[in-house]
């Protein structure tokens, strides 16, 4: 190998390395963007599935149990689904809501939904059994709302799922982060859920109600 060959091979190696060092970050960015999108889609898909299954169980009445005991008549009327516009569910008391004052004037719009049903083999959003202890007046309550943390301008929204503990106290579990808007439209037998993520992507799902429920 003479000097010319050595210089030529070094030049070629430099060109290849320069190309690689330029291409790798671009490729990495594209891959990262794609991965972020796939992750977001998978997470939102899973959460929408949780919301769908909860909404479809709304108003479930244990008819067989209700027939054998007349306890049903002593209970308050079962309101299957309650939607609270621009509100959040508080942790103070079961089913209590508060308006998100700090976000009313801003562009963020988040609704809250409260689902009630009797229990028979049901699970909450994170897969815990809903036993009779985890009910309030014989009804299990699953709520969804968005909780924002941080300054108004760059607050990060987390979709929370509310359920009851064994003592009947309210507990919240975060199930999706990076939520900007969470809108719920309740029509006769359809619930429409709209989620807007921080990436500005919107997800929309119409859920047909299964049980004959009072709204």
């Amino acid at each position, binding site marked *: *190998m003479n000097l010319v060959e050595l210089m030529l091979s070094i030049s070629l190696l430099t060109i290849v390395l320069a190309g690689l060092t330029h291409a790798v970050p671009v490729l990495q960015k594209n891959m990262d963007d794609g*991965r972020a999108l796939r992750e977001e889609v998978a997470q939102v898909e899973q959460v929408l599935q949780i919301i769908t299954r909860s909404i479809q169980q709304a108003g479930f009445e244990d008819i067989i149990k209700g*027939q054998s005991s007349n306890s049903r008549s002593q209970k308050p009327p079962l309101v299957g689904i309650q939607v609270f516009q621009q509100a959040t569910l508080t942790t103070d008391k079961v089913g209590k809501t508060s308006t998100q004052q700090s976000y009313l004037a801003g562009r963020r719009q988040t609704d809250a939904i409260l689902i009630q049903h009797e229990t028979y*083999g049901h*699970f909450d959003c994170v897969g815990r*059994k809903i036993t009779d202890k985890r009910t309030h007046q014989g009804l299990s309550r699953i709520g969804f709302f968005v909780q924002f943390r941080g300054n108004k301008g760059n607050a990060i929204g987390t979709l929370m799922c509310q359920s009851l503990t064994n003592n009947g106290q309210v507990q919240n579990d975060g199930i999706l982060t990076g939520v900007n808007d969470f809108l719920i439209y309740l029509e006769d037998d359809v619930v429409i859920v709209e989620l807007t993520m921080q990436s500005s992507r919107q997800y929309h799902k119409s859920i047909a109600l299964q049980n004959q429920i009072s709204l």
Partner: protein
Amino acid sequence: MNRAKGKNAGFILPITLGLISLVGLWGTILIEQMHRQSDQLAKSWQEKFIFYKAQEHLGQCLGIVGLQELPTQRWGQCCHVEAMTNPTSTKTSTKSSKLALQKSYRVSVHHELIHPISNQILGSSRLQAVVTLSPTNQAISKLSWREIFDLHWEQELNALQPKTNYIWGQLPACKHPLPTN
């Protein structure tokens, strides 16, 4: 010159091999991540697919309730309809006599999604609805629907209700091969 030649070869070769290994490792990690995400999406799609199949079939099974005089138990293909016994009450109030006229049925369906070649179960869906028919026109007056996730818990709950039978061990599943396209 020969020593210089050996030095160059000894320098360039490991660097090139190292670079190739790094790129290979990077690619493997990325492919692994992509596989995991696509598996997760596929699993979610499979669960939804079999759930909708079961839901559709439950609707069809509910359709036969009220149309004909059904026996106490009717075992269809992956669909089970049971007439529920009405409560016996010693009181002869108007409410209890009305209740005695009402007929209730429990309808259960079981569907499974299987791999077309290995027959491995990829997902399953068990749904159950209890319907009460109106005594006047046999139309559904009350419907309660639920999804069964945990069979052990279901067995425990079933034992607490003496009027109901545990049917999930006997009800065969309708098998759907995974669509390939």
